């Protein structure tokens, strides 16, 4: 892909990133950070691609380590975020009913 096309995607993504999180209540800061953390675990895709064309023992070792680390980042990230949010939810629903 041309450098200009990639640059355009980059700049537009920056604005999207700014826009989607411009207003967040402090309560959600931690889950949001954790969720964003899980999303960059998608580096797993890159790790799989480079592991898939590694020939030398060194490259293969490094890229397999990268796959393990990236998987931990991605899977662990989403699970821990879900655990945080589960607690918010479990609390809010019953009390909303009680309030009525």
């Amino acid at each position: 892909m041309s450098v200009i096309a990639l640059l355009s995607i980059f700049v537009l993504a920056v604005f999207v990133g700014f826009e989607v999180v411009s207003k967040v209540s402090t309560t959600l800061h931690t889950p949001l950070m954790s969720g964003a953390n899980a999303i960059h675990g998608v580096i797993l895709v890159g790790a799989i691609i480079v592991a898939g064309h590694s020939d030398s023992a060194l490259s293969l070792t490094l890229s397999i380590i990268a796959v393990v680390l990236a998987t931990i980042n991605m899977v662990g990230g989403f699970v821990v975020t879900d655990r945080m949010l589960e607690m918010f939810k479990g609390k809010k629903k019953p009390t909303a009913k009680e309030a009525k």
Partner: protein
Amino acid sequence: MNNNLYSLIGLVAAVCFILALKGLSSPKGARRGNIIGAIGATIATVVVFFYNDPAEGGLKNLPLILIAILVGVIVGVPAARKVQMTAMPQLVALFNGVGGGAAALVAIVEYLYLGDKASGGAVGATVFTVLVGCISFTGSILTFLKLQELMTTRPVVFPGGRAVIALVLLAVLGAAGWVGVDKGSTSLLVLTVLSLAFGILFVLPVGGADVPIVISLLNAFTGLTVAATGYVLDSTLLLVAGTLVGASGTILTRLMASAMGRSILGILFGAFTATPQAALSAADARPVKSGSPDDVAILLAYARRVVIVPGFGLAVAQAQHTVRELADLLTAKGVEVAYGIHPVAGRMPGHMNVLLAEANVPYEQLKEMEEVNPTFSQTDVALVVGANDVVNPAAKTTPGCPIYGMPILDVDQATNVIFLKRSMRPGFAGIENELLYDPRTTLLFGDAKDSLTKVVSALKVF
């Protein structure tokens, strides 16, 4: 699979990530947002196995890759499932660190693979990814050690530290330039080692209270490395996902910093300006009023309105259930109970909400700072459980102290203040709290959970 179709599915995953971040920003959509993000990540991971490398065709080493993913799942999922609520911030830091490490490794492997074929842009992106990914890796591990209290939470400053950091930074930049010119593997190795070292030096002087902001910043860094990797691997998905995290992470870091009255630049360059803190001396000898659990129980039982201010001490002691028991007991006695939640109480913004939610504290009792502050003057007892910096009046009265300008909970407006503290040690930010010496203040020393349990049993006798 056709590579156009592959890119198209990548686009679907990228849209999932945008929706995920959007959802996570609102209380209603948060959980769904996270699930959408996980779906996007799963789609991206499954579809990459059908990717056809223009030069090589399909992926090689498939069994090893699958085993590696399995290992990652076996390590990551139980860690995330079993972690105590109190330890979540450091787990997020650790996950971020391994992500940064993975990005750096991917960049290194791709650089070795491309060899002489690497374009100038690809070398530049590789240098960026290795440099920032390594900083994120060691920096995050250090924040993990700080939060886990495996090392001191105070800023670590040593004589000549500033000079060392500046020199290492110069060396890192020099090595980066070297890689750009020489495109060799020795220069890249040097860059890797120096960047790893810089990550450590960069986080060492950061004081405990700023650690959450640094985690958020490193998170944004890791996002940018993923974007740079996307450029090298010609993957739009990685480019978009990484940029999204980089941009939203930067905004989030700014939001957090402003909630704490700190500037990001101040924290970043704190590494260069940090000076050894003056020893806390004169204040230590002054008398304080310490009370017994019975004294505290009496104060609470005869109050009309009590505001509980939780802090990290509550998290450490796992006292969230006991504090709720105390609140229920007081409510049963006709005392009005509310929780005053400082946005950055604990080690991460929202830490206390998560913790109290775990103990099923009724949502309407949790009051945010703006809501609870005007009510302190009608409050009989402010019960501070393991918090310190977030109620320290020095933030208002002492210009020049590290937390000056941070909004605080005005517990000093309450008729009585009770502190449950482990010791006279100052809080995470390392600043003396004048309020402890105030005649209206009663101190109950000990582990927050033990103290609360004793107060609860004293209350039951009434």
